[in-house]
């Protein structure tokens, strides 16, 4: 629950990183960027495993790195935790032993440390794993224990280094919502490095986009991903987002429109009335010149704002129709060039976007 304030400058022969970022106490900041953007270097500097050439890193009131005045606090004295792609649980310790490791290292008596470890294991739904060794756990189970372990010492800042990237597809949604719940409950200040727009959307309050060692975009997650301004963001985001609150059918927008969608299982999705976002890929959107009839789809009335060539397909950007809801602004539909010809659509034309409920995911969202 500490504030993060950092400016990190690292100069290497073929690469330089110069990034300023901050996160308020309890805020989750996502760092997105292509490979080689400098994300790992940034994490290394924040964790204390790398020394920056210039800048500063402050966690709470403590300056943990400041090359200008020669400050470099060792990784173990920083109070910066790490959850990486690989769980890296200590193979010789049980789950409880792993989670109690941090508190023990801080001098907490064994009994107390283990009590706290069991509490945290319960918080990550891993009570039944308490006495197992990592070798007897699945990848998803290991990652849950690793999360408990990273939280156990009560780090001022938690670094999440693509925490879902190495998991089986089946295990990812559960872990994603668990991460969200646990980090929110703990009001943990965190920095999430990821490739996935969905991860950022679900977990982060704000997004920083890094390319070539520089910040190219930043802002609230929905703004950055909903209206991508850099090619990288456009590529990875490339998703249609509709904000609202969760309702039994899916999501209700501020103006009362209901978007039907899948909530990803009772336990995982947002509760009714909670802030949520409906997410679907532009390729799943069908476009009609007239309102389609008798279909169970979500049908949205839009005005064509722009036509963008997008590789083999054409991306149609929506704008609001006069008097209609503003949230359709920016929605995209990917269609074939032939379809565009059939529609004879030009910017300014009114169209209908249709998307099946099974293509729409409803996710809990921040604020």
């Amino acid at each position, binding site marked *: 629950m500490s504030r993060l304030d950092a400016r990190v400058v690292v100069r290497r022969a073929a690469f330089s990183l110069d990034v300023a970022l901050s996160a308020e106490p309890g805020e989750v900041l996502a760092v997105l960027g292509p490979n080689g953007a400098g994300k790992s270097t940034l994490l290394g500097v924040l964790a204390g495993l790398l020394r920056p050439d210039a800048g500063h890193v402050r966690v709470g009131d403590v300056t943990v790195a400041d090359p200008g005045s020669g400050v470099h606090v060792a990784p173990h004295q920083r109070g910066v935790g790490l959850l990486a792609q690989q769980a890296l649980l200590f193979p*010789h310790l049980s789950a409880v032993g792993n989670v109690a490791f941090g508190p023990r290292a801080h001098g907490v008596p064994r009994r107390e440390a283990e009590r706290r470890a069991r509490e945290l294991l319960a918080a990550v739904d891993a009570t039944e794993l308490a006495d197992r060794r990592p070798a007897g756990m699945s990848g998803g189970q290991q990652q849950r224990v690793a999360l408990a372990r990273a939280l156990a010492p009560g780090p001022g800042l938690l670094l999440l280094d693509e925490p879902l990237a190495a998991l089986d597809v089946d295990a990812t949604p559960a872990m994603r919502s668990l991460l969200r719940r646990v980090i929110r409950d703990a009001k943990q200040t965190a920095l999430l490095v990821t490739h996935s727009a969905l991860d950022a959307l679900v977990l982060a309050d704000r997004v920083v986009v890094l390319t070539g060692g520089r910040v190219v975009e930043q802002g609230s997650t929905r703004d950055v991903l909903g209206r991508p301004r850099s090619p990288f963001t456009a590529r990875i985001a490339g998703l249609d987002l509709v904000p609202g609150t969760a309702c039994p059918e899916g999501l209700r927008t501020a103006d009362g429109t209901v978007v039907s969608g899948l909530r990803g299982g009772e336990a995982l999705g947002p509760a009714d009335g909670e802030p949520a976002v409906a997410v679907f890929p532009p390729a799943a959107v069908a476009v009609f010149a007239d309102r389609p009839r008798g279909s169970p789809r979500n049908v949205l009335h839009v005005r064509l704002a722009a036509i963008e060539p997008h590789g083999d397909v054409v991306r149609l950007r929506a704008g609001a129709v006069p008097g209609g809801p503003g949230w359709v602004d920016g929605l995209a539909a990917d269609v074939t060039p032939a379809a565009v010809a059939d529609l004879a659509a030009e910017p300014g034309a009114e169209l209908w976007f249709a998307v099946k409920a099974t293509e729409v995911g409803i996710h809990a969202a921040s604020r």
Partner: protein
Amino acid sequence: MTEAPRDASARRSDEHETGVGLPRLLWVPATLAFALIALPVLGLVLRADWPRVPALLLSEAALDALRLSLLTAGISTALCIVLGGPLAVVLARGRLRGLRLLRSVVLLPLVLPPVVGGLALLFLLGRTGLLGRGLDVAFGVTIPFTTAAVVLAQTFVALPFLVVSLEGSLRTAGRRYEAVAATLGASPGLAFRRVTVPLVLPGLASGTVLAFARCLGEFGATIAFAGSLQGTTRTLPLLVYLERETDVDAAVALSLLLVVVAVAVIAVARPRTIEVER
């Protein structure tokens, strides 16, 4: 939650597993290799004068040699751990310049004939040796012909076995776990004790067994540096060599004793890194 646990039992092979098979041609040299190791030992077993074996093994000379061998090999192995362990850590984790050169020096005893090692020890620690002369003059201590000389000779030849095997497992374990321990608040010392050491324990165990076995079999360096005297410096291999002069049956019986001890060491310790992982 519903994923299958990555339990060891799940990976254990069962009789239905066929694998991808082996090229048949491999069996010929493999069989020859096995025969080359197993048949001479079998020859030893067949050659033994079994009715006399108990008496030969219970002779005072044999019991003294066995006792001395176990004692010196034990002490030498402990020395290998105490000295070689930290050396392996330095070699695996150190950032000194010239580390590669250092490593090749450490490997020398693996390559050198042991008798050369014994002579080298003699020229260093013998009564007229580089250090030995000083020890004699300053403290009146001479090392050759003592049990300590046997221990030094064994440690000399066995040290690389422990260092190499431990260094290997330190490299395999990598620094990632140590980095995780640091982010959890563990100081480098604590991370080493609570994380690194337990991680490399299997490597340490196999290195220890190898070193102990090498100590037990040591001959050349011992005879050259320590001499041969019953109860003081005459270990089992030295007694085997001597008995061969007059009583081949005794030499064979003692050789079998060494085989039994060696098999017992391997069976009891069962170092995981030596055993094939299934």
